[in-house]
């Protein structure tokens, strides 16, 4: 048994390794990114997929083959992967499938604070919620066991504070390996034509009913404290805040939060004079319990927003409705000095463009001194939104619309937008600028299919962005280095705006922070295929 100080993400990785998970797939996204990186560093097989949907599909295939698989993503990633998610719940799995959703209440680094506990209910997938790194380790292993036991995918729902906090983990002996994967045909269960899907839906509900019964006496939920006065019902990170905020009260700490152990909670609530639900985000627990006729106090609406902490839990318990003090604002992040994106936004500002933006470092083009980004919805949206603007605006304004998208984002979900541009071409044409900085910078410099290197920075197949663009029949394609000549770049954009065609400008220049590493990876690959990497992270 080893004791170590690990982040929740690292603990999930160690748990995955010890649970015998043989493949981890995912797409980077804060705060989930480090899970696969740590899994790879521990010797696990990990790979970045072009997006979360593909990653989940890869993990589903592996689990159909009888392997144990894990797929990791941030909360909004599960929106992208939702289509396979809802139906793999019907098909079930043969091996194990753990779906990690890392939510970001408070939006430390996200465009929304959606609460993915709702996905467990909507898709019908049992959900585990660890509250620290020890539980992140334990619950990852339990998720594998339960997935094999019930033959369903399991949602491991983390939040930023669980992912990025370091707490002590004691590991336990690795599990025995699963049987060697081999294919067993089972079309009735795996081919979801309506005649198969109808019984599959009933099977899923039966599995969930069995899981709910099992959960009534599961050790994944526990009571702390014997008080009969105040009782707190909670899960995840809120548990540790509540324990600190209210020492000596009774707490029912839930680990398996879908399907809920309703009778156990009912008995707990009845054992105390006052039962309060402490949860971050949506009132998922409170609403579910009230629907079951259990009388609980829920937090006031103000606490739906942002993270909880000890102070906020104290306020909820005390019924304190006074305004919360806002911490003084810090310095917002900015594009690094020397960032190649700066040239692009300087040009777009000078040309007075209407910029349909996307998600990545370059979203910071919205801030001074550029203020040259007009929209940002979700990954890949820049192209569709730009086209919609072109369709709706009067021609004089439509001609100013530009879509701006990063390289990793283009491969994630921009390609279909470009297909739309070709298929439903606006009367004024369109201009798409792909900011190819050779990395997924925003989330910490991960590789992607366009870099031609794997998650481990080793040689992999390379998807050439300009080849994709050409293959769609787009003729006006330019690859330029914005940094070498900002004027030439601006002229290129101005020219494309006037042309009235569908034009794609690929602005190619390595991210300043990544450039040194990219050179080192390439040197290592040239030397010995990258096996002896000596790239130090600092």
């Amino acid at each position, binding site marked *: 048994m080893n004791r170590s100080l690990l982040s929740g993400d690292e603990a999930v990785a160690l748990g995955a390794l010890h649970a015998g998970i043989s493949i981890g797939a995912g797409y980077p996204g804060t705060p989930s990114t480090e899970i696969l990186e740590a899994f790879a560093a521990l010797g696990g097989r990990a790979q970045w997929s072009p997006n979360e949907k593909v990653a989940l599909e890869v993990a589903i295939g592996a689990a159909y083959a009888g392997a144990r698989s894990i797929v990791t993503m941030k909360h909004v990633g599960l929106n992208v992967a939702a289509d396979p998610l809802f139906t793999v719940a019907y098909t079930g799995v043969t091996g194990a499938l753990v779906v990690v959703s890392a939510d970001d209440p408070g939006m430390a680094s996200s465009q929304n604070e959606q609460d993915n506990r709702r996905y467990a209910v909507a898709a019908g997938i049992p959900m585990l919620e660890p509250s620290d790194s020890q539980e992140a380790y334990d619950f990852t292993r339990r998720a594998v066991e339960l997935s094999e036991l019930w033959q369903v995918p399991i949602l491991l729902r983390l939040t930023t504070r669980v992912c*990025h906090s370091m707490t002590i983990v004691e590991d336990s002996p690795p599990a025995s390996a699963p049987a060697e994967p081999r294919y067993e045909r089972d079309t009735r269960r795996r081919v979801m034509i309506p005649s198969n899907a109808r019984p599959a839906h009933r099977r899923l509900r039966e599995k969930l009913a069995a899981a709910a019964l099992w959960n009534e006496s599961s050790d994944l939920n526990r009571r702390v404290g014997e008080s009969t006065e105040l009782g707190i019902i909670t899960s995840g*990170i809120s548990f*540790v805040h509540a324990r600190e905020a209210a020492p000596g009260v009774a707490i029912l700490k839930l680990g398996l939060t879908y399907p809920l152990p309703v009778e156990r909670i009912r008995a707990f609530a009845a054992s105390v004079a006052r039962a309060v639900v402490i949860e971050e985000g949506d009132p998922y627990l409170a609403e579910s319990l009230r629907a079951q006729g259990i009388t609980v106090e829920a937090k006031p609406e103000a606490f739906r927003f942002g993270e909880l902490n*000890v*102070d906020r839990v104290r306020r909820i318990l005390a019924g304190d409705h006074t305004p919360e003090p806002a911490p*003084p604002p*810090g*310095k917002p*992040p900015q594009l690094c000095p020397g960032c190649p994106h700066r040239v692009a936004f300087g040009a777009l500002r000078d040309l007075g463009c209407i910029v349909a933006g996307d998600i990545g470092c370059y979203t910071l083009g919205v801030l001074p001194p550029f203020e040259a980004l007009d929209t940002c919805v979700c990954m890949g949206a820049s192209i569709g939104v730009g086209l919609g603007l072109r369709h709706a605006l009067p021609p004089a304004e439509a001609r100013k619309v530009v879509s701006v998208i990063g390289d990793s984002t283009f491969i994630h979900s921009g390609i279909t937008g470009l297909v739309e541009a070709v298929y439903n071409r606006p009367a004024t044409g369109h201009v798409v600028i792909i900011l190819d900085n050779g990395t997924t910078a925003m989330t*910490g410099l991960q590789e992607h299919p366009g870099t031609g290197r794997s998650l481990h920075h080793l040689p992999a197949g390379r998807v050439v962005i300009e080849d994709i663009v050409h293959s769609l029949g787009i003729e006006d394609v330019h690859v330029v280095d914005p940094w070498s000549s900002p004027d030439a770049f601006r002229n290129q954009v101005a020219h494309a705006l006037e042309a009235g065609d569908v034009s794609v400008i690929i602005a190619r220049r390595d991210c300043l922070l990544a450039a040194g590493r990219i050179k080192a990876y390439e040197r290592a690959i040239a030397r010995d295929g990258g096996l002896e990497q000596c790239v130090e992270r600092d």
Partner: protein
Amino acid sequence: MAAWSNVLNATSVTNIVIAGLGGQGVLKASGIVADAAFRCGMDVKKAEVHGMSQRGGSVASDIRFGRMVLSPMVPPGEARFLVVISPDQVENNRWQLAPGGVLITPDQIDERKLKNRKSINVALLGVLSTHLEIPLDAWLAAINANLAERLRPVNLEAFQVGRDAARSSQ
């Protein structure tokens, strides 16, 4: 040394916040503190929000240790120690400091004594170390474990610069 800094015997939790700007080594510094406390057999938690690659935005990290730590986040206004690596980040982080808490900033260090100015984060840990009863060998082991080999000599020296500066002003 103040009585409450006797962390090894304390039943209470020691709360430390390290703040600065992205790229200054805030997270590296908090990792070293957490590791040093972990090596002393204490319960330790460390929390921070990170994810954005870009350099220059505000960053803060919380470290808590003691016999048992619950929340990983230092409650507002309960930091015994506030270490701020960038002078312009002192005011927006001051609210974290407990009444009577200790503020540690670069002006307590003669930066000319640093071989590399980037090691100011570790130099400030040298100052912090003189307030805590974490033994020196735990600090040194934590520094060695958290830094690449080529960076160790400079940072070990910086740590000593911080310790000397604190001692000479106490």
